[in-house]
């Protein structure tokens, strides 16, 4: 109650600031408490999005129309009858409102559910639009918290204005918290003192909020990135088309001449077949490449990375638009990534992993820089994350070549040994052994690590190289693992565990000398203690 009155008292003075604010109504504090519905066009969007489910039965009737297929129509009608009111009811019964320190979402038709998201626990607010949503002016808001999947807030969909307002409220609350934390004399982030500061901090926020642009990509940059990504896009597309074609019966495998398959094969002349094959493969690769470029442009068009106090903002997309926020205090690891070809040309990308939970994988790994030259990337990374990067990394043990060799030979020779029974040319496979050796050496050469005063750097991978940089302050646990074979060679692997949300990046220094591993573990633990001891000292001095 007290809070509310404070807010209303301030509402006048806030309104007087309209000239600074582009969307005047958005900051009126009394709009806090009112319960709101989603954007009305949400209904239209959902109807369109669920249309295929309703229309597919009609499609079947249309293409293979026979009397029995009226069953499909019936299903379609039933689906329609339940779906549309469902969309409407969901819309009507989904409400949300924002109080000074909570986002409250109410949903459910039969059983009502209320979700309270304390703004203090919000990690990240992400807004995104796909093409259709963009046409309709709808924004999807995802409020991520550190509490796992359950406390996440998803608003599908609100208007652009509303999305900005939600962002503003959460931002200014965080700013107040930080301010309060910076001036503990005021008694910490107590709600009352924070309220008094609200208008002021909001003002300073808006003026100082001119994000400084750190990195952006031109259309050419994005196209070049697409050209060098070299993902097997077409395979994915084919797999998708194949499953679709089977579902919809566009393609009938009965057309293949199964009766006379031998005659069919004999009728083909080998030279033509090979020619077809080569042309086919080339066409296939080119198509894959072009699709990859198109997908990349669509995804990363107009990429912008900007910095605001303690936060990074990314914005990109051609048909759909995506805006991401990376809270730097939650940063768990920085990953510099590239593939063999991009590396040859000197191009690298930067990903930032923030804290998250396994349930929301992928959501917590944000691309900060998709593609740029190494020097520039390092400058950005240093600017953003305060990392140090040495000129030279430390190599892992050379004995790792031996281990890799054994593994490759076992992995390739054993399955192929079956060929022994098929052909006497089996021994030709031995030709592969030097290749394995070369691979093992490359693997060794592209591995390395380095420990600075406050970061661990781990480099791995030849084809897909990544350099993982972990702030020592973010270490959760440290592990030294030694398999039976590693122990025989006096090797060990050091695994650095953090709270990074996605588990794609394995922060593991493989195959170093076991004494080195022990020493590094000791050093990391010492540095960890030092960092936190220094932090708590600072706090006492304040």
């Amino acid at each position, binding site marked *: 109650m007290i809070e509310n009155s404070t807010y209303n008292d301030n509402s006048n003075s806030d309104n007087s600031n309209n000239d600074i604010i582009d969307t005047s109504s958005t900051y009126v504090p009394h709009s806090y408490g009112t319960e709101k519905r989603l954007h009305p066009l949400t209904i239209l969007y959902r109807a369109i999005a669920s249309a295929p489910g309703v229309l597919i039965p009609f499609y079947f009737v249309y293409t293979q129309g026979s009397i029995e297929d009226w069953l499909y129509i019936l299903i379609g009608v039933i689906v329609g009858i339940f779906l549309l009111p469902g969309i409407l009811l969901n819309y009507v019964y989904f409400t949300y409102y924002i109080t000074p320190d909570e986002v409250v979402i109410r949903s459910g038709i039969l059983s009502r559910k209320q979700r309270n998201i304390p703004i203090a626990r919000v990690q990240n607010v992400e807004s995104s639009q796909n093409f259709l949503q963009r046409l309709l002016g709808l924004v999807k808001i995802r409020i991520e918290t*550190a509490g796992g999947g359950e406390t996440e807030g998803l608003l599908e969909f609100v208007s652009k204005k509303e999305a900005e307002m939600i962002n503003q409220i959460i931002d200014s609350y965080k700013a107040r918290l930080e301010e309060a934390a910076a001036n503990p004399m005021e008694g910490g982030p107590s709600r009352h003192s924070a309220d008094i500061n609200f208008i002021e901090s909001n003002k300073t926020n808006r003026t100082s909020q001119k994000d400084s642009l750190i990195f952006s990509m031109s259309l050419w940059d994005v196209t070049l990135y697409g050209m060098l990504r070299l993902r097997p896009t077409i395979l994915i597309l084919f797999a998708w088309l194949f499953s679709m074609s089977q579902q919809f019966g566009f393609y009938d495998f009965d057309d293949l001449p199964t009766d006379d398959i031998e005659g069919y094969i004999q009728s083909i002349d080998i030279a033509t077949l090979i020619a077809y094959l080569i042309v086919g493969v080339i066409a296939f690769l080119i198509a894959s490449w072009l699709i990859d470029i198109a997908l990349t442009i669509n995804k990363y068009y107009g990429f912008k990375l900007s910095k605001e106090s303690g936060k990074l903002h990314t914005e990109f997309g051609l048909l759909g638009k995506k805006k991401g926020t990376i809270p730097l205090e939650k940063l768990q690891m920085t990953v510099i990534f590239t593939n063999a070809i991009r590396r040859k040309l000197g191009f690298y990308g930067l990903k930032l992993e923030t804290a998250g939970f396994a349930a929301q994988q992928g959501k917590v790994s944000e691309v900060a820089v998709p593609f740029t030259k190494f020097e520039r990337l390092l400058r950005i990374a240093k600017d953003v994350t305060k990392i140090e990067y040495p000129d030279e990394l430390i190599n892992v043990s050379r004995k790792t070549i031996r281990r890799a060799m054994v593994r490759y030979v076992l992995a390739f020779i054993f399955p192929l040994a079956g060929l022994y029974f098929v052909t006497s040319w089996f021994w030709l496979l031995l030709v592969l052994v030097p290749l394995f050796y070369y691979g093992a050496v490359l693997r060794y050469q592209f591995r390395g690590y380095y420990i600075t005063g406050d970061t661990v750097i781990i480099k791995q991978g030849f084809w897909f190289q990544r350099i993982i940089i972990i702030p020592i302050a973010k270490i*959760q*646990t440290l592990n030294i693992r*030694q398999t039976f074979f590693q122990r025989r060679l006096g090797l060990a692997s050091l695994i650095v565990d953090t*709270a990074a949300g996605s588990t794609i990046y394995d922060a593991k220094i493989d195959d170093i000398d076991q004494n080195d591993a022990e020493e590094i573990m000791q050093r990391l*633990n010492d540095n*960890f203690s030092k960092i*936190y001891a220094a932090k708590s000292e600072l706090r006492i001095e304040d």
Partner: protein
Amino acid sequence: MHQLDPSVKIIWAVSYSIRSVLFTALLLAFEFFFVRTGKLEWFLSFGLTTIIFALICLAIIIIYPQLKYRFWKFEVRPEELYLERGVLTRVKTTAPYRRVQHLDVAQSVMERMMDLGKLVIYTAGTRGADIIIPGLPIAYAEMLRDQLKNYSREDAV
């Protein structure tokens, strides 16, 4: 460096025994229906495979808990917890106290009978998120839990 309570070996042995009996019974049933009836041609006559399997199990039940016990060590260091374990693959872990999210002391029926318990330490880590120290005298496990609980920490990741 501490070792676990020696009676944890009995608990391990019992749990391996239960599993062994189960698998041996399954194998015997399989042999009874397939090898004995001749539906499956097998190079050993009926019953022999099961006997060999049972003997291997017995060896594991006798030897493995001893080895596991020998390599299980932990240390309560001033800033972090240190664990060492593993027979074939050895793992050494350090978990700084300020990373502890929450703590549990858990007891199975067997453990309760022997006044033992295990301390489960949860961190926010993605890989080996929970750290388990089995076979602690229950009073000690609870004391350790309370001691770690009182360690001042930040909840920020």
